């Protein structure tokens, strides 16, 4: 809460306070412009890939963010994404309607969110266990009901946003993306706005920091937690739908491949803020994109070293710059109405 207060004191003091962030922003912008001037095709390819790789990660992180801000730790993001990916794929196979498939994927995620909220809020079950149950269940359900040889009926295609897409560099990177990618970027802003500038957001944060105080002033702690976890589930569901409808085009066993856990890391890395998480997701997306490029350029390193880069980088950044991150105080603690 003190974070938002200081942020309103003016942008200059914000820049001074966050000197590392400012420095990183300047370096990143500078090197992008430099890279674009030297080799525009590769730069655009790398940046566009960065955006797309970061999409499922930021969606997963936003899911975790909503939960934790209201006091529910969600380590079941991986499972929510996996089941949503599976259901969205089936919806696409059987209806051929991509929009419907996205909605069904989000609904599947929301349903699992409701299940998590039931365990965490109503049953007051340990939230780590609740999330683990969802993860195991997802592996089981998607594996058991997996049918080999289903073929997809189309994939979400990039949409050019008219004249915006013609802006050099920014156009092809930001304004020529498939729908879920746009949605993810919009959601970052929406979640930030809702969380920090609306009554609902204030209530959510109050419930996540000090539920008994929130209860005293008449906020329904259980309801706030339920709604946030369900909304988060829907967002994670979008992340799952991204994988089958936009990224890969079909379903494979365990295809989330740890992205849900990465999203968790990204959420903490971004210090429980939407923009922080987005930055972390983009950093990841970038290292993924770079990884492919480096291999393409024939950089003489074992692929496993390049493959480890994003993870080692995260650890270094976390230990060096970010340091002690503080979770919402009531995150992970079931609320007992007293």
């Amino acid at each position, binding site marked *: 809460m003190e974070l938002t207060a200081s942020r309103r004191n003016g942008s200059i003091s914000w820049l001074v306070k966050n000197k590392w962030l400012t420095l990183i922003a300047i370096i990143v912008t500078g090197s992008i412009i430099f890279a674009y001037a030297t080799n525009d095709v590769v730069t655009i390819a790398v940046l566009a890939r960065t955006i797309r790789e970061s999409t499922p990660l930021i969606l997963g992180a936003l899911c975790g963010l909503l939960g*934790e801000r209201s006091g529910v*730790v969600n380590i079941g993001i991986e499972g929510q994404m996996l089941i949503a990916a599976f259901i969205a794929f089936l919806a696409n196979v059987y209806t051929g309607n991509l929009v419907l498939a996205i909605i069904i994927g989000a609904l599947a995620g929301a349903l699992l969110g409701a299940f998590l909220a039931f*365990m965490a809020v109503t*049953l*007051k*079950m*340990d*939230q*780590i*266990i*609740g999330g*683990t*149950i*969802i993860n*195991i*269940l997802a*592996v*089981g*359900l*998607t*594996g*058991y*009901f*997996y049918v080999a040889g289903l073929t997809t009926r189309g994939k979400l295609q990039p949409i050019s946003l008219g004249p915006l897409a013609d802006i050099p560099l920014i156009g092809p990177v930001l304004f020529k993306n498939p729908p879920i990618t746009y949605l993810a970027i919009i959601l970052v802003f929406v979640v930030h706005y809702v969380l920090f500038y609306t009554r609902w957001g204030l209530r959510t944060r109050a419930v996540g920091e000090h539920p008994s105080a929130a209860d005293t002033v008449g906020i329904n702690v259980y309801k706030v937690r339920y709604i946030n976890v369900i909304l988060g589930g829907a967002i994670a569901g979008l992340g799952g739908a991204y994988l089958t409808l936009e990224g890969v085009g079909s379903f494979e066993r365990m295809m989330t491949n*740890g992205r849900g*856990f*990465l999203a*968790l*890391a990204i959420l*903490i*890395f971004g210090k429980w803020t939407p923009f922080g998480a987005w930055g972390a997701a983009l950093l990841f997306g970038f290292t993924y994109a770079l990884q492919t490029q480096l291999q393409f350029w024939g950089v003489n390193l*074992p692929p*496993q*070293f390049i*493959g*480890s880069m*994003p*993870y*080692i980088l*995260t*650890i270094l950044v*976390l*230990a*060096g710059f*970010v*340091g*002690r*991150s*503080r*979770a*919402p*105080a*009531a*995150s*992970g*603690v079931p609320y007992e109405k007293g």
Partner: protein
Amino acid sequence: MTTIPTTNPDEDRKKKWLRQIWHGISIPVVAVFLGLLIGAIILLISGASPIEAYSALLKGSFGSPAAIQRTLEKTTPLIFSGLAVAFAFKAGLFNIGAQGQLLIGAIVAAFVGYSIEGLPPLIHIPLALAAGGLAGALYGAIPGILKAYTGAHEVIVTIMLNYVAYNITNYLVNGPWKDPSPTNVIARTARILPSAELPIINHIPLGFIIAVLTAALVWWLIYRTTLGFELRTVGLNSSAAQYAGIRVARMIILAMVISGLLAGFGGAVETLGIVRRYEPGFNVGLGFDGITVALLGKTSPFGVIPAALLLGAMRAGSNVMQLEAHVAKEIIDIITAVILFFVAADVITRRIIRQRTADDDQVTLSTGWSGK
């Protein structure tokens, strides 16, 4: 607990003892029953025969000496990874990285197992085991040190290190430690020497016995030593621990080192006792299963053993089930999730068997992310 004097205190004590045992095991027993029941319903819905599937599962896990051996083989690494996760939980740490520590332990044990020649088994086996455990401990020390000195969250660091471990082992089996024999085209290490192989005595893998003894040792460490007391204090409330003069940073590092050691042993035992070499893919998920085992066992070292046995038996039997009853083996995961649900949701389970709730055995692990 106050004892009410009765005419026959001996008999009374016996009754009480029995009731306590039932109180302790009733929840898991009912949870397993409900898990199998819901599994059966899913099997029925998808058109398979639950009786056929479950009898194949039972046959594959306990139906013959060979099946029992397979079950124990699957159980052994799970006991270790379960202990690793449970131990970290006791100190308030969530070690998602047991998987990575296990991989590192497995490959180092393989290296020591195949590369050092001319040792008698009595030296070679402990040496390879120790090397694997030590490698896991060192790998576990990284998140511990980072958490203690920079505050980097152990959940993120261990998740990241899982990927790094996967890459390191992949690099080693494709490069310097690849099996050099001319017929080999697979990315894997050479077979360990016979002197490093953990023997199987009468269908009981020696590794299993070591695992059970380790569980006892871990119990002793947690509940009967000053160190264990300090660790638990840090886990319950680290600020209070700080006030009491416990060096919290040191405890965090130590907890992660021991957790990593246990996971490393798990990998080493898997290598030396079952796979007999390091081959990627053989130990996928063992570390993550450790989380399940620790939670099922309510993070108690002795609870971990039956939990690992349950999971190990299902894993061992699932292949037979898939082969004979044509049921996809992922049904096991569904059943596991349901069992875990009913163990954790003891409010519901107790209502089903009409038992009063006792506060003392509620499972709580996370004191919140902030880890205070």
